């Protein structure tokens, strides 16, 4: 690969923070990809990975806050961030629209995440993007 061959990545995170290392590894990868001049067209959270999109997590003050680091990175780099709506609803991560639909008292979807369907992921798979998965380890 020559330096001019930039790649468009889609990152799919399926492991939850403070449960797996997946969101951490994915964030390190994402930062390094941007630093190298590549682009990230979408970050897609699936399965337990949607837990990264809650804005109610409160990390102890002596530990890194992976939720905030991710939100700040996505906003600063202007990367579209999607949590799979089916995964998120089951696991209690909802936006204002779903709060109203399901008649709940609150919503907890962190900015800049959106709740959208698997079609977003299909779009990445069908495109020229390189889709890289970050699963829970073990």
């Amino acid at each position, binding site marked *: 690969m020559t330096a001019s061959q930039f790649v468009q990545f889609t990152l799919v995170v399926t492991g939850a923070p403070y449960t797996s290392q997946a969101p951490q590894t994915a964030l390190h990868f994402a930062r*390094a990809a941007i630093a190298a001049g590549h682009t990230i067209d979408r970050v897609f959270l699936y399965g337990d990975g949607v837990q990264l999109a809650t804005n109610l997590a409160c990390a102890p003050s002596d530990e890194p806050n992976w939720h905030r680091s991710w939100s700040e990175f996505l906003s600063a780099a202007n990367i579209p961030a999607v949590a799979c709506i089916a995964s998120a609803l089951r696991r209690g991560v909802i936006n204002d629209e779903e709060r109203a639909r399901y008649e709940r008292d609150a919503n907890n979807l962190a900015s800049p995440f959106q709740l959208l369907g698997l079609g977003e992921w299909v779009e990445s798979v069908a495109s020229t993007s390189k889709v890289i998965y970050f*699963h829970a*380890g073990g």
Partner: protein
Amino acid sequence: MMTLHILNKSPEHPRFRLCLEAVGDADQLLLIENAVLALSVEGIKLPGRIMALASDLDARGVSVDGSVDAIHYDGMVALAAAADRVISW
């Protein structure tokens, strides 16, 4: 077709064996997270060209000899960008 295999499971995990069976001689195998522990297990034969994430090696106190390339996240990105196909196990 050159495939980069990214493996993050410890050697006890059933996915570990599944990955090893999928790695061809011309492929690259990148060990990350708990998978770097495999480098200290006696008698595990790893196929293809072996790399490991330096920060995960450091975290777990695993040292490697010259047969393994310890790389950083920028190296991981470069490998993923260059590979024809990337499989995360």
